Every structure is written in C-alpha cells, then in structure tokens.
C-alpha cells in the first residue's frame, strides 16, 4: 500500500503561531470545505476558571471548540463567547442534554440562530448513566437536520454499521466514541474505530473517552482524522500542560499514521549489521550454536 506522504520538509510546521516563516500547513483537516491546521477539537466544559480555559485552549492549538446551549443567565454567556472570538476559535454548538430527535432539532435551530453557524455537533443521548448515543434518534435527527441545511457532526457509538448509515444520511463528519463521555477509559474497541476510519469517506473524529495523550495518539494512528476531547484536559490536575500534551499527541499520531509503520513481528530483527563483527577466540562458532527461539518464523505461523 502506498502511504500518502505529507510535505515534511518544514519540520514541525503545524504551529502557525511559532512558525511564521513557513507557509500554510500541508496537512489540513477539511471539515465541510473549511481547512483547519489543528486536528484537535476541544470541548470547553469542566473548568470553572475561564482564564485557565483560555490558557488551555491556547496551549492546545485548537481552532474549533464545542459549546453547549443553555438558558441565558446574566453575566455568564458573554464572556465565553468573547473569549472564543478574541482567540479566533470557531464555535461548534452541540445538542448535549437532548434525549430525542425533536429536542435536538430545536436546540440545533437555536444554536444556528444564536451563533450564526450551520455547524452542529449532534448529540442524542440514551440515558444519563451511560450518556451513550441513542442511535435510532440520532439517525432520525441527522436526516432531518441535513434536510434543513445543517452541517451535521454526528456523535455516535463505535458501531461501523451506524457510522456508515450516518454518512449515507449526509453527516459531514462521523464522531464515534472511544469510551463513554468523561470516563477517560481510552479507546475500548480499537478494531471498530479502525474499521470506521478505513471505510468512511467523510472525516472521522474520535469523540469522548480520551484520558491521556497516548490515547489521542492512538486514535490518530487508527486512522481518525481528528480528536475531540474536553474532560481529559479540563479536569486534569494541570489543564494547560495536558492541553500541550494533547496537541503534540494528535500531531504525532497523525504523522505516524501517514508514515507507514513497520509490521509487528514476533522475532527480533537486528538493526545493526551482523557482518564485520570483531573476532572472538572461537575460530568457527557456527550459527548452529546460536540459541534460537522455538516460534515458527514470521510468515509460517498458523
């Protein structure tokens, strides 16, 4: 398989803030025709300090963040909106807290009206213990929102069949969970995530369940186009440090996924040449004396 090779000549060049001498990033995330240089999408929930949130968002390098829609409370909403605007971060309103397609539709319409965007992260939850997606309502809501002109980012289960159906219904991106929201359990079914990513023709965003940086990197290595996370950063002991870690993890995972990893093998494979070794006192220590493992050679395994 030929692995598409990004232009790596500029070194770590995703950082538009610290790498001003180099041109546009060569490997953008394209969502609904919009190019983003960061493949990390951040949620904004979980931090009581807006100041820390702002620092964490900046450290993450994100260019797209989710927000929830709730009743206006004086002195509350303006500051988050202003924070995102002054940091030039796009807003992706979600339908968190909706249990039916009907609720999700109304919330999406309100988000479009309030935030002047057709983009919506569609979340339809089955119950509050698991917060797992109700895929029946989700498919219904996706179809209706697409018909109303929304760009739907569908938060879904890690079921490849459902992911395919969402794509067929016109979802702009499919966002399977790694694990239930806020659990930090990582990616419970890597095989399914890889299957979803390999079959999708729309961007796949690993959404929910990430606990630490290696899991974000794994999501990208499995073929996801982006990672969406909130709690892993906002509830970390040091949110800004974790945001930095996630930024690097997503970038590293993306590079690794495109670099063409070596196949896993059971036997060691020396990286130093055997020829030209220095002489030892045994003049003819035959190869037969070298202890060997008792596994079948790679390629001859059952």
């Amino acid at each position: 398989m030929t692995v598409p090779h990004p232009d790596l000549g500029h070194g770590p060049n995703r950082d538009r803030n610290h790498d001003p001498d180099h041109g546009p990033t060569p490997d953008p995330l394209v969502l609904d025709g919009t190019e983003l240089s960061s493949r990390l999408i951040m949620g904004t929930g979980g931090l009581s300090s807006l100041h820390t949130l702002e620092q964490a968002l900046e450290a993450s390098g994100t260019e797209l963040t989710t927000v929830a829609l709730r009743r206006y409370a004086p002195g509350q909403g303006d500051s988050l909106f202003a924070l995102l605007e002054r940091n030039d971060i796009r807003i992706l309103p979600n339908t968190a807290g909706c249990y039916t397609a009907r609720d999700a539709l109304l919330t999406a319409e309100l988000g479009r009206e309030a935030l002047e965007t057709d983009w919506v992260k569609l979340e339809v939850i089955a119950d509050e213990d698991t917060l797992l997606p109700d895929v029946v309502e989700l498919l219904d809501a996706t179809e209706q929102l697409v018909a109303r002109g929304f760009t739907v980012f569908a938060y879904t289960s890690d079921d490849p069949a459902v992911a395919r159906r969402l794509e067929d219904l016109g979802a702009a991106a499919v966002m399977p969970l790694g694990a239930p929201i806020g659990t930090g359990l990582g990616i419970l079914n890597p095989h399914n995530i890889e299957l979803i990513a390999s079959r999708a023709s729309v961007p796949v965003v690993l959404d929910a369940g990430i606990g630490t940086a290696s899991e974000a990197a794994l999501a990208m290595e499995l073929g996801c186009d982006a990672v969406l996370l909130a709690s892993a950063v906002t509830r970390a002991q040091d949110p800004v440090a974790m945001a930095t870690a996630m930024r690097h993890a997503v970038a590293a995972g993306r590079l690794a996924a495109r670099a063409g990893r070596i196949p896993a093998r059971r036997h060691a494979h020396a990286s130093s040449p055997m020829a030209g070794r220095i002489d030892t006192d045994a003049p003819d220590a035959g190869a037969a004396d070298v202890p060997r493992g008792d596994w079948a050679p790679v390629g001859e395994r059952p």
Partner: protein
Amino acid sequence: MTAITLNGRPHVVPEEATVVDLVAETVGRSLGPDGAPLDGGRLGVAVAVDAAVVPRSRWRRTPVAEGQAVEIITAVQGG
C-alpha cells in the same frame, strides 16, 4: 401587564412588548430594530417561543402574549 414564563420562571412584561424588548431587557443591552446590539458586538443569543424558534429578523414584529413560554438561550461551556 402580560404574564409569561421566561426561562422557566414567571415573568411580566409591559403590554405590547415584543420579543426584541424582552431580549434587550434580559441581556441588558440596547438592540436595534434588526435585533443587533447597538454597541456593535455580537449578541450570541437565540429565542424560542412555545418551543418554536423566532429568528432575530422577526423579534421586533413578534408580540409577547399572555401565558407564552419564552426561552432565551446562549452559548455556555460544554461538550
């Protein structure tokens, strides 16, 4: 006076108040006829009356009627 429910709580507005008046009162900013803030910033709120979205362009023409449930929502941290 007209008694309504605003964001789940009882509320009264003057007779002949429209949605734009109610939004301006709630957010504490002056709004133009098109619903845009006169201070030049973005408003970032949306309105539903009896579970139906009222687009900003219609706020001025939409009277608030006795007994209606009005929701004024905005972006908060989440997701």
